[in-house]
């Protein structure tokens, strides 16, 4: 590793000419390692960054690429087995590594502040928010407690929290996730820091709440002039918040540059692969399928020699890419744009990336699944057993109406609490509906729990689960788990045939046959998800429910699993119900979309209908909230205030009325909305007059010509 440090140091000094200003933060050839029983594991190697006052830099990368380690190293908080093993971290020109514990303490929280990924876990559950906020001025500026509290109150107002007095005296669990994150941001800003580190600050939040936080962060940058480092796995968020970007892969920065350069004229194969594997508005499952990056991330102690990306790279050349340390190379035409690729000057960057296989659009067949007035209410008795209190109804699903055809992909979109999981449970027979019907063919499943369903019905309807770490039983082999499904559904009974079928299924999901003997812990997340897909399709189902099947996977793996799912569906003409919160993915793969909010369907129609006006106001906000990693896309801003109400206490009229910018007082908050049908199948549940809905402007517009020419 040291060679890498020296060789690239020279290039970088040349790259960034000294300006008059001192950078707020400068990392020079930073190397960080963790020391475990297995020995030294390099987490970050040769990391360079120069952050000027008022600048916002993004660090993007997949899990395990070392992006969070960089943030914690800047804070000098590495835990007991992490250590900076080389390079420097200069804060306002001083090396933080040489500072004493007391000096660090004075800088932390006052000059450098941090916002974390999980707001709930980051706040002390046993202290009021007021006390936690007041500590910052008390310990950094030695003000009185009253003064500290009044500053805290003011800061809560400037992060736009309603009713700051109530929040000051609350405990963290008493406010919602979005509010908690605003509190954490307020805490970070209380001492007016020079540098703000944001480590995936919105990952744990719903997309409409996320949009509010992102907006707040942008305003802060403008208002306070704070320099920011924004760490995220989401390129779209970086585009919205930052000036410059560092792309990390497997412990190294692979490409650095301005947003414009990196997004429109990327010069590293990994960055290029990353962009090709995320669904942006231009992508389409039939004509422009996603292209995944082959292979998987190497583990930190199994990195290949030379370029870490080499084994997955299309441009790999033996004896060039796999020898020595690869230095960062400046690209002449950009704004300090650099790439860690030895072949950067040889590759034709304008060539289209190896396009995926185009396919004919499938023609949907007859209606397979018909949901008619399906309603699911839960009765919750407060204080069970001895003190029977008042009964409480949670309206998890309210009068759902939609249907799905053979070979069609219907996406159910919504944020937390929208009732999509309850719907899946009713469909799978783990709950029974309170009212209405859910029919597959001629069988009504609404009131038929799974133990009353025949094997044929059960095998006809299978599910792919969200969490790859949970989807397979860690105690049994992969083959055993697939075989169990085959036997259970009676697809095959002869042991030899069962075995053959397991192999066949592994082939279908493109896994090596010897995986049958492996246990789940020997598989990566994407591989586990493939096994989950194999298991779901083992009984030749006619309907498959996929509950956020790729949301827990890394971006570069997501595309491959998504494509696999689409291929098998196309092959078997399966009806796919795709549950998701991610409109980008949904736009890419769905034929029709059902938008849900608090247990009710707000809008449904074909994908094109949903993505173009007329919109339901909620759909409009949702579309505006989704970050898109494409500089050619212009979005109209629709910001929602407030939080998603609790399903146990929904608003009386339209569920969306509490947050709707078009709310008609006296109507929307008291009367349930009527369903307006625009074209055949495009239905919107809204009080707004037809004309007003029809006159809405599109939220997402793609500029024909790029805004700038690289």
């Amino acid at each position, binding site marked *: 590793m040291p060679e890498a440090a020296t060789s690239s140091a020279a290039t970088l000094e040349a790259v960034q000419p000294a300006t008059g200003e001192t950078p707020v933060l400068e990392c020079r050839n930073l190397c960080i390692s963790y020391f475990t029983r297995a020995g030294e594991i390099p987490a970050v190697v040769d990391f360079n960054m120069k952050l000027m006052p008022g600048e916002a830099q993004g660090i993007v990368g997949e899990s395990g690429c070392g992006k969070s380690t960089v943030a914690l190293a800047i*804070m000098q908080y590495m835990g007991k087995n992490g250590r900076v093993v080389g390079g420097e971290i200069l804060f306002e020109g001083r090396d933080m590594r040489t500072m004493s514990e007391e000096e660090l303490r*004075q*800088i932390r929280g006052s000059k450098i502040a941090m916002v974390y990924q999980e707001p709930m876990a*980051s706040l*002390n*559950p046993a202290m009021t928010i007021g006390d936690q906020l007041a500590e910052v001025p008390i310990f950094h500026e030695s003000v009185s407690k009253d003064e500290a509290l009044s500053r805290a109150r003011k800061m809560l107002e400037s992060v736009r929290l309603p009713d700051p007095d109530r929040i000051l005296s609350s405990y963290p669990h008493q406010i919602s996730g979005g509010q908690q994150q605003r509190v954490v941001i307020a*805490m970070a800003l209380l001492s007016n820091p020079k540098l703000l580190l944001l480590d995936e600050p919105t990952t744990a939040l719903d997309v409409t709440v996320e949009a509010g936080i992102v907006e707040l962060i942008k305003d802060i940058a403008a208002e306070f002039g704070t320099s920011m480092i924004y760490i995220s796995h989401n390129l779209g968020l970086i585009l919205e918040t930052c000036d410059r970007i560092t792309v990390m892969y497997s412990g190294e920065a692979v490409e650095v540059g301005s947003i414009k350069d990196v997004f429109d004229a990327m010069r590293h194969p990994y960055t290029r692969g990353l962009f090709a594997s995320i669904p942006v508005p231009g992508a389409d499952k039939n004509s422009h399928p996603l292209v995944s990056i082959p292979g998987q991330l190497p583990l930190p102690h199994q990195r290949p020699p030379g370029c870490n990306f080499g084994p997955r790279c299309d441009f790999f050349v033996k004896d060039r890419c796999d020898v020595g340390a690869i230095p960062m190379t400046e690209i002449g035409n950009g704004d300090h744009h650099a790439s860690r690729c030895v072949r950067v000057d040889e590759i034709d960057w304008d060539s289209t990336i190896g396009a995926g296989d185009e396919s004919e659009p499938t023609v949907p067949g007859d209606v397979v699944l018909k949901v008619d007035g399906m309603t699911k209410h839960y009765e919750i008795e407060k*204080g069970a057993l001895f003190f029977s209190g008042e009964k409480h109804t949670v309206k998890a699903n309210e009068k759902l109406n939609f249907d799905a055809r053979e070979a069609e992909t219907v996406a159910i979109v919504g944020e937390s609490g929208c009732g999509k999981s309850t719907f899946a449970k009713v469909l799978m027979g783990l709950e029974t509906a309170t009212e209405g019907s859910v029919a597959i063919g001629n069988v009504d499943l609404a009131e038929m729990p799974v133990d009353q369903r025949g094997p044929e019905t059960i095998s006809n309807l299978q599910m792919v689960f969200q969490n790859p770490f949970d989807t397979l039983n860690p105690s049994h082999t992969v083959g055993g788990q697939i075989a169990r499904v085959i036997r259970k559904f009676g697809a095959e009974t002869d042991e030899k045939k069962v075995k053959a079928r397991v192999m066949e299924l592994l082939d279908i999901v493109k896994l090596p046959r010897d995986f049958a003997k492996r246990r789940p812990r020997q598989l990566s997340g994407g591989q586990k998800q493939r096994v989950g897909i194999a298991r779901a399709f083992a009984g030749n189902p006619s309907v498959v429910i996929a509950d956020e099947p790729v949301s827990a996977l890394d971006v570069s793996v997501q595309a491959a699993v998504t494509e696999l799912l689409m291929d098998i569906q196309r092959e078997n003409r399966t009806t796919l119900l795709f549950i998701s919160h991610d409109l980008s993915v949904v736009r890419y793969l769905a034929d029709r979309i059902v938008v849900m909010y608090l247990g009710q369907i707000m809008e449904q129609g074909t994908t094109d209908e949903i993505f173009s006006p007329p919109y339901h106001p909620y759909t409009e906000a949702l579309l505006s909230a989704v970050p898109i990693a494409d500089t050619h896309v212009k979005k109209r801003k629709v910001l929602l205030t407030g939080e998603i109400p609790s399903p146990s206490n929904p608003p009386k009229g339209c569920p969306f009325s509490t947050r709707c910018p078009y709310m008609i007082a006296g109507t929307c908050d008291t009367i349930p909305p009527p369903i307006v049908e625009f074209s055949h199948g495009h239905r919107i549940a809204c009080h707004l007059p037809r004309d007003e809905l029809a006159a809405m402007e599109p939220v997402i517009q793609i500029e024909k010509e790029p805004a700038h020419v690289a």
Partner: protein
Amino acid sequence: MLKLIGRRLVQMVLIILVASLLLFVIFDTPQFKKRLAVQELGGFAVSALSEADYQEWLASRGLDVPFYQRYVDWMGNILTGDFGFSYEKNTEVGPLLASRLANTGILALCVFALMIPISLTLGVLSGMREGSPLDRSITFISVFTTSIPEIATAIILTVVLALGLGWLPAKSAMIQGFDVKQLILPVLTLVIYDFGYVARMTRASMAEVMTSQYIRTAVLKGIPYRRVVMKHALRNALIAPFTVIVLQLNWLLSGVVVVEVFFEYDGFGKLLLEAALFPDVEVVQACTLAAVVVAVTSQIISDVGYTFLNPRIRFS
């Protein structure tokens, strides 16, 4: 909050009722009735008794009516403070039990007074810096001391401190009135056996809190380390040990039996064992019921205390 306490109280009464019923039923067999007759009339007299006479005796003692009726009577008596009569000790059970419980209470008080500060301090020190040499040695000592059963600890302490060095009396019968010196060995035995468990619980709780994200937030907020530990960590880390300490009362009631018997200390445990070996059924029942009440009460204190200490539950 009040609702929760109310619910707990109802559960407590139910548990005590069921426990007392079990206790009553298992000692309500013919052979235990016969033993009662033997105690009252003498073994020879009972063997000479004809079946009809025996039935008559049962009727005179009220033992022929169905057990549930007698259970209700028994419970009624206990609620009015009448615990029955001990044939072995030839005295009312109530006052006997009260004085023995008081003795055990003194013992328990001393044990807690020593154990709580020792175990909490060691646990916090150990959990604060997980994996440090101090942590390792504290952990090892606590595994070691909890591995030596009370009986062995009692023997080793007696052999060294009483028989060998002669510093302390080997027995704690307190024949010549109350003597603090005689209390030392039993208390020490119980503390040595018990502190390790609480210390390890405290350590685990502290270690978990120290690696939590909100401690990271506190450190990165730039507040002094002392305050991070005292204000942020301890408040959360001591919730779990609190419940463990209160529940130790239940464990202690087990431990006192062997310690009291070994040191001949006249407490509740010794009373129970002697009654069980004799067997003196009414004393066994009374002692067991008392133990159950103490245990259930401590359970409730622990539950309610936990909810009270934990704002996450208190305000939900």
